[in-house]
């Protein structure tokens, strides 16, 4: 069975011609062809069956065309990686319409928190919630909102009658807000605002439900907060230049400081991969990748400048960063030097010239 190249299913006019030329065959013929196919896929198929099927196909061009349509699908299926295809196509929750509709996502990162958190450990201690390197934690808040803390994160939760406030000192959080139960109780109909505060300013959720996540990431991006909005919208209000407040829509990500807000960019579609414990990168520089990975490990993770510009792509399980490091030499011309579990350096491979 030839396996044709997978063709795009996007609605393009080029696909029109084949649809015009050959619509679906007659239902009765399709049914007959299907019966033959069932027979021929049976492990008990006989030579007589095969011959009879060949005769049926030869009787009429429409028979053969129906047969070819099924064969084409079979070819496509045969070209797919079995395990992955079976899991994707055989998934039980086919269309999670409700889940997709109602989730409002917001991602944030506060690189500056990284430094202050290292130098001022008291901030971390005073936080209501915290996670260690490599740890991830899901918390249900008093109003029913869901909060997920990524690695090395410190956040205070301060709810009162006026507002629902999260103070993010360091790290990354993912928030899915619930409709404020207090509004029903008081019958005011108004939700208390849901706000995430960082050293750079406030991020206010606009909508009934949303997810916030914040990460300390890169030393190059010091003193800024990153926000990624996955659904609905948020309002950003820099701490100093409050008049610069602006609304960020779903599908956008943005970096802001106490005084400025950068132009919004398209959100990284894998920005929430960490929620499921994975890191997905596409042609990322090795030094950036190791900086990301380092957030999930204790100790030092260094990258030799000679290999820093190598590119890496893949989906990685964050619960086994040692395993990821050990596998690096399989895909890149590098060697990994473990001086100890807490001091790791990635260097050029001694075997490549």
């Amino acid at each position, binding site marked *: 069975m030839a396996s044709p190249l997978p063709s795009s299913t996007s609605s393009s006019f080029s696909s029109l011609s084949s649809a015009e030329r050959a619509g679906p065959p007659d239902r009765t013929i399709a049914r007959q062809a299907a019966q033959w196919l069932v027979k021929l896929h049976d492990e008990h198929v006989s030579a007589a069956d095969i011959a009879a099927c060949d005769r049926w196909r030869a009787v009429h061009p429409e028979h053969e065309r129906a047969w070819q349509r099924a064969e084409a699908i079979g070819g496509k299926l045969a070209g797919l990686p079995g395990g992955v*295809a079976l899991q994707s196509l055989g998934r039980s929750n*086919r269309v*999670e319409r409700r889940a997709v509709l109602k989730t409002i996502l917001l991602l944030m990162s506060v690189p500056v928190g990284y430094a202050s958190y290292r130098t001022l450990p008291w901030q971390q201690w005073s936080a209501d919630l915290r996670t260690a390197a490599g740890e991830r934690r899901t918390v249900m808040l008093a109003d029913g909102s869901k909060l997920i803390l990524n690695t090395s994160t410190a956040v205070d939760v301060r709810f009162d009658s006026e507002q629902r406030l999260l103070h993010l000192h360091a790290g990354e959080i993912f928030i899915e807000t619930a409709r404020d139960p207090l509004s029903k109780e008081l019958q005011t109909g108004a939700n208390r605002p849901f706000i995430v505060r960082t050293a750079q300013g406030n991020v206010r959720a606009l909508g009934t439900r949303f997810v916030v996540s914040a990460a300390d990431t890169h030393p190059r991006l010091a003193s800024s907060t990153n926000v990624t909005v996955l659904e609905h919208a948020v309002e950003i209000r820099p701490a100093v230049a409050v008049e610069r407040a602006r609304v960020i829509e779903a599908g956008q990500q943005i970096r802001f400081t106490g005084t400025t807000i950068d132009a919004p960019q398209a959100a990284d579609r894998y920005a929430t991969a960490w929620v499921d414990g994975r890191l997905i990168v596409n042609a990322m520089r090795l030094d950036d990748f190791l900086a990301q990975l380092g957030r999930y490990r204790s100790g030092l993770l260094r990258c030799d400048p000679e290999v820093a510009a190598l590119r890496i792509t893949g989906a990685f399980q964050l619960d086994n960063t040692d395993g990821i490091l050990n*596998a690096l030499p399989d895909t890149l011309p590098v060697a990994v030097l473990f001086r100890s579990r807490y001091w790791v350096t990635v260097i050029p491979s001694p075997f490549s010239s």
Partner: protein
Amino acid sequence: MAATDSSMQHVQSLYSHHGWLLAWLRRKLGHVSGNAEAADLAQDTFVRIIVAHKREQCGVQSSEQTMQALREPRAYLTTVASRVLFNHYRRLSLEQAYLQALDQLPEIHAPSPEERLLILETLNEIDAMLQALPGQARSAFLLSQLEGMSYADIAVKLNVSLRTVKRYMAQAFEECIMQES
């Protein structure tokens, strides 16, 4: 030629509701305001309509839909757009499942971005095709075609009779053959 002209006029008159359709899609998507997603889906909706019109000219489809489109253009647009929207969600859930499946592979076997895209397109095509099938029939078909399982083994796995497995297979093959494109 006359048929083509009037057909294109239908599409053009429908297109005057483009702004309205965009707003409808945004509301359905639950976003606060405009974004590329709604625009893409509106585009897909019109492409579908144009394809349907072309088919009609070839006598593949009845003009029932054209009549509805003329009488109640917005109702017609939402009917088509709902299908586009459903397809969109189906694709999202497929992508999610695909990524989850990829995660379970050792990193070395992770496909390149290009391979990933090609596989996803093929998966999407097949997923759309199997959408109409009952869950058990879909499972039977996938186990047979992807895992190479025998009918007898599938019957045991799904806890149904051999005859039922064959009926499922016939249903699935028929669905494959009757695909629109």
